[in-house]
């Protein structure tokens, strides 16, 4: 599926100043793209807990969903986000955050993607989101 791709984790990140700014990491594990966000002080949105910024968590999730779509579709045209809905379940603590993406529906025009982010274990999500993307 992912052989002869024009896309590599490096190219994906190379295109996105925002992803680099927040410090997002991509890795290929068993030929699947894995997303992580190592802790950076500049991602703090609540200096009293401390906790990651909720908006940043949303941004990381949206970026992960976009990259996941680019990867599985072997496309370099960025899908356009139509809407993005996020439920915050736990504080994102001052440590690494991981994202899992799955495509619920991959239609001709629209893809529906679910994203879950977690720290301690995948069954304790920090936030879950679903998004619609307009495909080219």
């Amino acid at each position: 599926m992912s052989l002869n791709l024009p896309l590599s984790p490096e190219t994906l990140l190379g295109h996105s100043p925002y992803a680099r700014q927040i410090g997002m990491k991509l890795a290929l594990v068993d030929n699947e793209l894995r997303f992580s966000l190592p802790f950076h002080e500049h991602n703090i949105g609540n200096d009293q807990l401390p906790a990651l910024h909720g908006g940043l968590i949303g941004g990381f999730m949206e970026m992960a969903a976009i990259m996941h779509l680019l990867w599985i579709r072997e496309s370099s045209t960025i899908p356009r986000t139509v809407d993005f809905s996020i439920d915050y379940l736990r504080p994102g603590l001052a440590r690494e955050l991981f994202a899992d993406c799955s495509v619920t529906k991959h239609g001709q025009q629209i893809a529906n993607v679910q994203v879950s982010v977690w720290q301690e274990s995948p069954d304790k999500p920090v936030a879950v989101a679903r998004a619609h993307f307009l495909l080219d």
Partner: protein
Amino acid sequence: MSLPLPVKNLELFNDIAQWLCQLPHSRILQLEFIQGERGRATMRLPYQERLVGDSRSGVLHGGVITTLIDNTSALSIFSLLEEPCGYPTLDLRIDYLRPATPCVAVYCTAECYRMGREIAFTRATAYQEGHAQPVAYGVATFMRRRSFKGEPAPLGASA
């Protein structure tokens, strides 16, 4: 929308506005507080190349708009509060109406349209000067934190 009144507790509101702009992640975005009145708040996000989602288009990443909307929505709640209280975000939905035009700042005005005993409901518009069509709409709910360990802390923007 009723006629504008001043925020309920100006000192608290200004503290929170300043706090929301000085958070590490807000400083990365260079978020600025613009104004507030009872039930409403406005913030501004200057255009910055390092916040672009796809360098080929120059359009700001959606995540930046999410942060702007989250912060401004939280701030609108504090325009209605007499006393400090924690209000973490429960959920947030963003509808992207059009890509933000590159090299132009994005404003966000948020309104807390229902202040319940435990839940605050907000709606927000992200827009750019000179463009009639907004960039995004955001609807969110926030939960009033019942108790804190130690001092009541003005937790606003994050879960």
